[in-house]
């Protein structure tokens, strides 16, 4: 890192197009002859289709075609699930692109209309007649697992029985005898038990999902523009489902308006759009409405957790035992089985030394929208368990929550630490992070202020979270071992043009995270070119090398490493060329800030631009050196990276009405060296607020019949600017020992920490009133009711 560009707060290079309205998102694409598709969603949580009549719709003005499951059956293969969790009795239910017989959630597609205009397509939807025989529905995952619950699927894709709606049963156990730890704690220690509901959340990327498909009948080539976080994975899945060979299939993720996990999965509607384009030979556009997005695009979380912590009387944790019912929704979405298991259970020891641990996770089919990764994906649910239990332990023992954390932290380490779940954390200083946070926020003084008691019926509360997360997914060998049907490496091609300008082709596909900027900063810092001279290409499977997607805070951690290593290859070659031009031996060469020179003679240097020109024109090159200045790297990380931090939330609760106000929030995060601190802070801000949303406002609610009650933005409450305080964001820097740049990831950190911090703060505020638990979101009514119950009225 010779150049100061690494770590500088340069403005984002993607912004000029975004602030002027000239960026092109999927919905902005117009093609000659394009027609518009609208999906008929069944609107039933569970029902048998007894009749579909499409004649009227077909005859409606502007309608080009109407298709149902009869048309797609056997043409479109069932939706694949791509995370085949081993040793978990995984049962994958068949997931047709268009339902023909039974519908299992309100967003199941039963027909598609294609018309000359979107208006006409939607008009015709109303003319399709479908008769349904309603079936009993179940939404709550624990209820769905009980005997006698409505059963969604009889058989899995292999013809094996599915019983009790169980999609899988996964277990993690590590360390000593957990039963013994609890027996000892029952006898001579403390046991804390809690039931935690991690409610269903709707991701709400501001851009809804959509697809544009164009098929050339003459060549058999298909182009699919899609709002995806992982165009290469989608190309593969699209090939499997539609039968278009991968070499004739081009997937483009144009500008993508946020994802948060909801644009990882492949969706039936994407492939139905492709089907229409192939049938009709005309480009077809399908763009989801927001209400449709709520019914059809994957949700997140949905855990029912029973958790127990064993500890000694002086506050040392001795064991953790959890049972989780994880709602999967009606079908297993692309990566769904890995979320409440691998990404959750393996992180259950968090920042603490926990000698014995066991968790059972039951993945359960329900009549809800399929559940997928949602920002944090499994880790917020794990962090919440620990951070809540630690606070409860502190309360039981009359200790300050900070002190219980300090007592149980893994001590500082900088080159590996294996935890009870067998993960090998790379580097961390959890005590250091918390103590810096406490000092920065004046935590002990805030506690003093709190002791003064409520003012005007308003109770102050403080909530801490200490967290460590797993990201930079991940070594491909591990991916294989855990059943992920793909690799998790990343690749980059770096190409120098004769004038010294650089093109970077990268498989990762950012969608708001700013890597067009940070990747250029990596190139600039590694080889001394201007950021302005580097162009980053991503999101088009025809022009970029294979990539495994942007999720799990892995794009900078893995893609960035691939890029840095590719640039270093170029630097090595450039050194050889420069030595040749300077008639020196390579061993005598030195490099600094884009200049190659003989050691001790920096004034007689060849710049990287000089070398690029000569390598490209190739008039004189060293013996055996190929022309051109280009390198490709495939980077498969040796381990995951483990960012961490500590957050503090301060709230005020109006005991008369139950209203919670978040009055202060401080985040300390350590994601290693920061390539662009402004972008890092932006990731933290957004992540924190998403987690605050879960604690206070957000939750997908269903009624008894399985209808989504929070079916639009009128009912599902997203955080708004006027509900939030100024966020204070600070950091520490602990490099990852195994990463070429030392960097970790930061995309999910805020969300992983903030839900528990805010929840702990509210419970802290309510302690004097005798309240110990309230289900999320902490709406005024729920808080008020808990107060009433605790007060015995």
């Amino acid at each position, binding site marked *: 890192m010779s150049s100061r560009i690494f770590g500088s707060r340069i403005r*984002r290079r993607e912004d000029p197009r975004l*602030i002027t309205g000239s960026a092109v998102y999927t919905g902005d694409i117009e093609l000659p002859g394009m027609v518009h598709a609208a999906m008929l969603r069944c609107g039933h949580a569970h029902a048998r289709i007894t009749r579909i009549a499409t004649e009227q719709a077909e005859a409606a003005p502007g309608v080009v075609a109407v298709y149902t499951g009869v048309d797609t059956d056997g043409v479109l293969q069932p939706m694949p699930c791509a995370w085949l969790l081993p040793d978990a009795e995984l049962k994958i239910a068949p997931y047709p692109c268009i339902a023909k017989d039974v519908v299992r959630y309100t967003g199941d597609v039963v027909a598609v209309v294609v018309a000359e205009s979107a208006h006409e397509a939607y008009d015709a939807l109303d003319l399709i007649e479908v008769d349904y025989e309603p079936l009993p529905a179940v939404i709550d995952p624990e209820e769905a697992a009980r005997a006698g619950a409505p059963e969604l699927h009889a058989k899995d894709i292999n013809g094996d029985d599915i019983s009790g709606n169980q999609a899988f049963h996964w277990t993690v156990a590590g360390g000593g005898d957990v039963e013994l730890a609890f027996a000892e704690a029952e006898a001579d220690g403390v046991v804390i038990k809690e039931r935690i509901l991690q409610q269903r959340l709707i991701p*709400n990327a*501001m851009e809804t999902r959509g697809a544009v498909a164009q098929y050339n009948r003459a060549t058999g080539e298909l182009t699919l523009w899609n709002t995806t976080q992982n165009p290469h994975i989608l190309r593969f899945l699209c090939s499997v489902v539609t039968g278009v060979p991968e070499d004739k299939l081009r997937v483009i993720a144009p500008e993508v308006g946020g994802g948060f996990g909801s644009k990882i999965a492949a969706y039936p509607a994407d492939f139905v759009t492709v089907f229409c384009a192939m049938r009709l030979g005309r480009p077809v556009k399908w763009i989801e409405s927001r209400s449709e997005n709520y019914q059809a695009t994957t949700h997140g979380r949905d855990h029912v957790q029973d958790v127990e912590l064993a500890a000694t009387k002086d506050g040392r944790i001795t064991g953790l035992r959890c049972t989780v019912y994880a709602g999967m929704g009606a079908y297993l979405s692309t990566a769904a089985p890995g979320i409440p298991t691998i990404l959750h259970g393996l992180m259950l020891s968090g920042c603490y030394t926990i000698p014995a641990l066991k968790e059972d996770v039951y993945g359960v089919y329900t009549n809800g929208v399929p559940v997928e990764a949602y920002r944090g994906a499994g880790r917020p649910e794990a962090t919440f368990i620990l951070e809540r239990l630690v606070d409860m332990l502190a309360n039981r023992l009359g200790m300050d929550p900070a002190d219980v954390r300090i007592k149980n932290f893994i001590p500082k380490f900088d080159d590996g630490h294996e935890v009870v779940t067998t993960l090998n954390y790379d580097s961390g200083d959890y005590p250091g992070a918390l103590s810096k946070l406490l000092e920065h926020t004046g935590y002990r003084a805030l506690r003093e202020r709190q002791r003064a008691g409520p003012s005007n019926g308003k109770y102050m509360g403080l909530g801490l979270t200490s967290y460590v997360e797993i990201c930079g997914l991940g070594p491909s060998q591990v991916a294989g071992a855990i059943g992920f049907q793909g690799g998790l490496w990343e690749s980059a091609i770096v190409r120098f043009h004769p004038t010294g300008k650089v093109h970077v082709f990268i498989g990762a596909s950012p969608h708001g995270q700013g890597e067009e900027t940070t990747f250029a900063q990596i190139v600039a810092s590694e080889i001394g070119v201007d950021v302005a001279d580097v162009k980053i290409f991503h999101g088009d499977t025809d022009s970029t090398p294979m990539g495994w997607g942007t999720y799990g805070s892995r794009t900078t951690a893995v893609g960035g490493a691939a890029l840095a290593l590719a640039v270093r290859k170029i630097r090595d070659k450039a050194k050889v060329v420069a030595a040749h031009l300077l008639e020196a031996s390579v061993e005598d060469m030195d490099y600094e800030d884009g200049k190659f020179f003989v050691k001790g003679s920096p004034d007689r240097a060849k710049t990287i631009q000089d070398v690029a020109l000569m390598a490209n024109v190739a008039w004189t090159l060293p013996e055996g050196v190929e022309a051109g200045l280009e390198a490709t790297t495939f980077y498969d990380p040796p381990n995951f990276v483990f960012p961490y931090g500590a957050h503090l939330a301060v709230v005020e609760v109006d005991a008369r009405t139950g209203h919670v106000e978040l009055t202060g929030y401080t985040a300390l995060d350590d994601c290693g060296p920061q390539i662009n601190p402004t972008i890092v802070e932006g990731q933290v801000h957004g992540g924190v607020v998403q987690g605050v949303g879960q604690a206070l406002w957000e939750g997908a609610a269903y009624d008894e019949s399985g209808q989504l009650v929070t079916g639009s*933005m*009128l009912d599902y409450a997203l955080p708004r*600017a006027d509900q939030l305080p100024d966020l204070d964001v600070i950091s520490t820097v602990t490099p990852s020992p195994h990463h070429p740049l030392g960097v970790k990831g930061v995309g999910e950190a805020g969300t992983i920490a903030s839900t528990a911090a805010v929840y702990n703060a509210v419970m802290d505020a309510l302690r004097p009133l005798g309240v110990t638990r309230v289900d999320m979101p902490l709406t005024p009514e729920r808080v008020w009711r808990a107060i009433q119950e605790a007060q015995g009225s």
Partner: protein
Amino acid sequence: MKVPVRITVNGRRFEHEVEPRLLLAHYIRDLGGLTGTKVGCDTSQCGSCTVLIDGVSAKSCTTLAVQADGANVTTIEGLADGDALHPLQESFWDRHGLQCGFCTPGMILAAYELLRTNASPSDAEIRHGLEGNLCRCTGYQNIVRAVRDAAAQMAAADQ
């Protein structure tokens, strides 16, 4: 039924015959060919479609094109003065007030409205002024900073 409408968008005059049900947002995007204006919801909550009608902010997804007949509409594409970005565009860029960019056109125009009616807002007033615009990426933190900066720059430029 089709109704003739004349709408000037960013200084360019358009004449069309439209169905009365056509929303201004779709008019601007589909007939005006200006796709900077986004549609992020269907219940008037998200503010992504915010434009200026005769200089005043409006949700173009909750306005029929026929209602804007005869009006001057400004969209995000019309905010810059040639190559010179509007101070709000500059400050959103400077302050990292956007990430995925989808809410940004509406957010910037909502901020424009705020500064039109209150040239030097407090942070609380900025937050209230943006209550009708949802952003899922930024947590609003840097948007507030960007609006604060733009207000200061615009005030300095006026002096």
